[in-house]
């Protein structure tokens, strides 16, 4: 509106006359229609919204319907109310999976944050080969998770584990460690692999953040007598906080809904002790064909994801408001 008004004022003031503009007769054509801002917006947004509607919004609604029905493969279901959710809650494997999901997310996120920050600070120093090291550091994040997890599974192999060999040779252990054959150990291993894969994402994001901090601030702080740790704690960390919130929220969503790592590394075993919500939903919904029950299990992820996304949106809005 402001622009149009300005145009009119301009032509009244005679500016228009000074800038001869070719006057083209515009026919009532597609191009003319596309000059209408609202029409153009509809056209431009249509492909994206169509795909997202068909493959995100629609399945989401359908997922809610499935979770309230007793649908299974080859059997059109009937409405059964909240029965699937109640049954899941009574299931001891489900409860283990539910608990595991939180444990997995908490420990993995904590270590990824701490190690990622440390690595970012190390990478932020300028020395030779920095570019190559930065590229190499991201490799675990680039390579398909399934494939790199296979390498880890081989390294944790009960009979041929290289890690056992190494620890034995160094003299730390006398007998082999039960990497994937004991439930608690297996969960620990899965967390380690997740940290290995996700930490570069933190490191590179933080590195980008660190590079926006004015070095003069650090210099001023050192002149005032702050040591390395104090400079990090009172200067770098507060400045990186907004970025940290965004990175952590992203990572929590990815970790909480993880599937492939557990599917390959342990398959939920031994004795269903390392399932996450996503892998258990797969086992029930796809492998066993109980679609309704499986949909209900994966919907148990929704409240947590909703809260995290809500925090994210609040936070992004607040940053924009400032």
């Amino acid at each position: 509106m402001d622009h149009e008004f300005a145009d009119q004022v301009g032509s009244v003031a005679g500016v228009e006359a000074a800038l001869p503009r070719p006057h083209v007769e515009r026919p009532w054509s597609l191009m003319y229609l596309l000059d209408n801002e609202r029409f153009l917006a509809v056209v431009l947004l249509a492909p994206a919204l169509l795909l997202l509607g068909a493959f995100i919004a629609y399945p989401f609604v359908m997922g809610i319907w499935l979770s309230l029905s007793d649908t299974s493969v080859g059997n059109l279901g009937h409405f059964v109310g909240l029965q699937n959710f109640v049954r899941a809650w009574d299931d001891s494997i489900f409860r283990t999976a539910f608990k595991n999901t939180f444990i997995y997310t908490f420990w993995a996120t904590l270590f990824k944050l701490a190690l990622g920050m440390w690595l970012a600070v190390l990478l932020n120093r300028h020395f030779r080969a920095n570019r190559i090291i930065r590229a190499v550091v991201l490799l675990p994040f680039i390579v398909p998770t399934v494939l790199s997890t296979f390498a880890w599974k081989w390294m944790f192999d009960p009979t041929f584990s290289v890690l056992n060999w190494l620890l034995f040779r160094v003299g730390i252990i006398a007998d082999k460690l039960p990497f994937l054959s004991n439930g608690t150990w297996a969960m620990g291993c899965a967390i380690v692999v997740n940290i290995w894969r996700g930490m570069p994402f933190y490191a590179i994001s933080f590195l980008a953040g660190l590079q926006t901090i004015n070095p003069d601030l650090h210099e001023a702080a050192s002149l005032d007598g702050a040591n390395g740790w104090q400079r990090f704690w009172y200067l770098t960390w507060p400045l990186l906080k907004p970025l940290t919130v965004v990175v952590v929220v992203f990572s929590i969503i990815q970790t909480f809904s993880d599937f492939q790592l557990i599917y390959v590394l342990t398959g939920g075993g031994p004795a269903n002790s390392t399932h996450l919500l996503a892998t258990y939903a797969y086992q029930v919904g796809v492998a066993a064909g109980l679609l309704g029950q499986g949909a209900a299990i994966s919907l148990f992820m929704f409240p947590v994801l909703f809260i995290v996304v809500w925090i994210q949106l609040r936070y992004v809005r607040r940053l924009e408001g400032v």
Partner: protein
Amino acid sequence: MVEQQWRKWAYCYIPLALFVIGLIFPFYWMLITAIRPDSELYRAWRAVNNAPFWTFHPTVAHVEDLMAKTMFPQWLWNTFFIAIASTIISLFCGLLAGYALARLHFPMVGTLGTAIFVTYLVPPTLLFIPLANIIRDFQLGDTPWALVLTYPTFMIPFCTWLLMGYFKTIPRELEECARIDGATRFGAMLRIIFPVAVPGILSAGIFAFTLSWNEFLYALVFLASPERKTVSVGVVSELIRGDIYFWGQLMAGALLGSVPIAFIYSFFVDYYVTGLTGSIKG
């Protein structure tokens, strides 16, 4: 001076070296396993003659087996095709939507932007069961199109978000000049703004491509025939026969499935990092 040198090693070089070794070791292990003959591969962990970190008899037998006796080349091609097709679709949708959200004034522009951002945060694991039903209803089951059409659901929001940010940094005057010279709004977008946005498009494309190459769950659920599978799914479901793991072949598969993506990435590290950091900025 010696004191300072010592501190630099303790606080910088040694931790950094440990980080790099830890991050790289699994890849080294893939490589060494892939070229090691079976007779060396399966030695008990405590065997005296076990030298696991190198091999005296490197062999390409595992790679040859993988290429000749399995459908690995086909899986590689499938993965590549699906990644390219879904990246093109996502870039197309993301470009148009990103431009609309960054530049046009229309009601609900803020709400729509937020809605697209929220879909970015919806993980595939939440939707795969109902989505499998929908794919079957659309007659897309066990075809590459099931993935070509569903992968954009997590790539479009990302591309839109990244490109929207990029368009906002392009000065409006550029477009206004073109309009004064008689270009239509659509023409100005196509011929002036999009060419300027090429670095942003490249970043979004590279990042989207790696996301697609990495995807596993949808490919696992929607594809059934061995010859239609992607690398990740093929390696998981076809290279393990019964309960037996052929580790040499598995690691050769893991290595060869990782090399193309690492190769592409190595040419575009900077674009990739821009995409990565842009993907999380609000």
